[in-house]
């Protein structure tokens, strides 16, 4: 089926791709998927903590996005809209599994060094710290975790996080602060050891 995409050599802008996808153009949607899949997977990996779940949920995220593409009215960015779907999926995932049942993918974490090697003891401490931190992040309430991941790890601005999470920027700032305090409290032995 011929589309606008066939008639131009330059890649169309994202809003145009979204419009085409809204009209049922699978090729346009594929382009959008390729552009955003990695980022969505990255956020989901931070939130759920393992590759398999993150990949499955990223696929699910795009299936849902395609099905409900008509609801996207272009008021925010398409990336933000996808992130919002991803956050909902992560929240549902956490609810389904329950906090205690969370399996920490240490193998994922330990596959590459968390910090520059400065000696065997320091390296071991750092690895423990990363593993503990991953576990501690996972134990955070969903809202705090989402705010922390998006703001501190993904480096999004407070306004962007607010748009994605549906909270106010001030609330996001508070959530991030609370998350950081909780992490400091639960990670204090490793943090003190690292400081020595």
């Amino acid at each position, binding site marked *: 089926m011929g589309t606008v995409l066939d008639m131009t050599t330059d890649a169309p802008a994202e809003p145009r791709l979204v419009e085409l996808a*809204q009209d049922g153009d699978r090729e346009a949607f*594929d382009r959008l998927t390729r552009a955003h899949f990695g980022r969505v997977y990255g956020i989901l990996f931070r939130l759920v903590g393992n590759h398999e779940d993150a990949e499955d949920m990223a*696929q699910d995220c795009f*299936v849902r996005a395609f099905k409900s*593409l008509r609801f996207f009215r272009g008021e925010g960015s398409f990336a933000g809209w996808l992130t919002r779907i991803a956050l909902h999926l992560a929240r549902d995932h956490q609810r389904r599994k329950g906090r205690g049942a969370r399996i920490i993918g240490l193998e994922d974490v330990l596959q590459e060094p*968390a910090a520059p090697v400065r000696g065997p003891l320091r390296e071991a401490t750092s690895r423990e710290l990363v593993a503990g*931190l991953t576990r501690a992040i996972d134990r955070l309430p969903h809202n705090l975790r989402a705010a922390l991941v998006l703001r*501190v790890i993904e480096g999004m601005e407070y306004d962007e996080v607010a748009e994605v999470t549906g909270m106010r920027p001030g609330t996001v700032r508070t959530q991030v602060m609370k998350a950081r305090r909780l992490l*400091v409290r639960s*990670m204090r032995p490793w943090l003190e050891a690292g400081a020595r």
Partner: protein
Amino acid sequence: MKACRRTRQLLERSFDGRLTLDEEFRLEEHAHECDACRRLFEEHERLCESLLNLPSPPVERLDVERSLQRIHAALDESVGAGDAPEAHRAPWWRSASAAVAASLALGALYFANRPGAHEAPGEPVGTGDSVVAAPAEVTPAPRNPAVARVVDPAPARHAVFAATDLDRVRLASARAEVRELFRRAALELTPDAPAAAVVAFADRFEELAGPLLDSSWPVGRIAERLVVSTPDPIVACAAARYLGVRGSDASVGALVEALALEDRKQAATLALFDAGERGRAGLARAVWDPDLHELVVERAVEFAPAGCVAWVREALACMPRGGSRAKVSDLAGGLLRVLSGAGAAGARSLLGLAHHPAFGEADVIEALAATEDAGAAVTGLLEAHHSPSEIAFLLRAVDRLHPPGAVGWVAQQCRSRRYGGRAFRILATFGGDRALFALLDPRVSGRASAAELRGVWRLAIDHDLDRIEDLARRIADASELEQPRFGRRLVGRRLLEALVFAEHPRAVPAIFELVGGDLLQDDDRERALLAAAAFAGDEHYPQLRELFRGLDSKECDLAAACVITAHSLLGEPAVRDLLSEVPARRQRSILALLSRPGARGGTAVTLFKLAHELEPVLGSRAGTERISP
């Protein structure tokens, strides 16, 4: 501690990169001095470092193309399972708005084709300038061609949109046509035309606008817009009057809107009158416009005496809150005039308004007095049960109006501890036999003190002396009295007592009248005569003389009282005049008695001796007729 707290606040902000250089310096300085804060700072710093050093997601393990295949498979599977992708479905709000639009279209078509739809010219089918007029095919057929669209909704939508564009053009031309027709039809319409003339004008306009009305053009709605928007006041006024007699309920809104426009508010007001009941609410507002006030009040009295009580209530609810209070009260006075013209119902309303902040009580009473058959209206009000404040108001109203039927009610109020004094005074000035009889009733006057009683009777004597004297004359003449409840003798005695008690010189003739009659007991007559001597004047002597000449031999004591009184009034000459028929020797004897100390007071001894001296004089009249005065 305070420095630590401030430092921790800075610490939180430092991780957002929101610290100024100065704040950074202070944070570091404090961290250098305070171990606890430094430790906290280092922990947070290390946490942030650790968060940033968390392992990156293993993106290299991702196979995006494989994921895409899975996504497609999932989408295809959901389509195959009958779970059609939402991407191919219209959003809910589109479905909902389509449903609403379809309902509206069907509704519009129903109303456009309902029986009699074409017999209602001027019925609006849209709003303002965005009027979606009748179908493009403006045929006066009884069945609207648009009915066919109901069968095939899809093409109907396009047809309606096409017709709307076309109708906008036609609507502009229709408005110009209606404007011109109003101008032509209004040639003979004067600004203050009566309703009959307006109806004739409306007929003329509809005759001219026949084709437009037949084709269901929203002439009424066009007229509504013209009333408020056309710059031509003649057309605006004509449209307003037309809406007044032929408009719908919705047309009143345009008329009310026009009340704010200087060059057409008078026509709008008249149109609201033409509209009858529909225009009432608009007029309730118009009455507060100083320019329209007189017009509204005059017309309200003239045209709506029956419904104006409710209307006044409505108008009071619209009373402006701000502005000059005097001005508002002035305008409110016009409403009282309206109620004055509303008979008994108006009077009842006025009673309710006695304490309304917009009115003075005196104004309300004057309005009450101005009502048709005000006395009957007020009397009618008295029958109901009233609050104390209403009773006070009614007493004032009765005092102002003196309705004959109110005597009983006022007499009843005389017994009230609260209003007794006021009611008693009202009764004294009321006038009429009934009021006098009520004053003489001990049940009415029983609560009054001696001073009050004297004051009230003096008031009555000053106010209604003629009637009192007339009553005294009728009692003395044994004429029939109008009040059958009391015996004539009893009434006479009470009246004599009251008049003597009042000690009012003007009451002396009435006292002499009562004393001259033979209905009352001699003792009462003597005492009254002697008491009257204290406040009677020279001018009363002729009547006393007549009284004396009318006495017979059995009335020696009364004759003695007459002589004492005459002596009190004019001294010895009066006694000589009175006893001119008496031999000189007896005259000297009588004058000698009167010259004794204490004789003027009419002591029993003096009276007895005088009576003895006069007995032969009066006895000489025996067998002869009494000397008539």
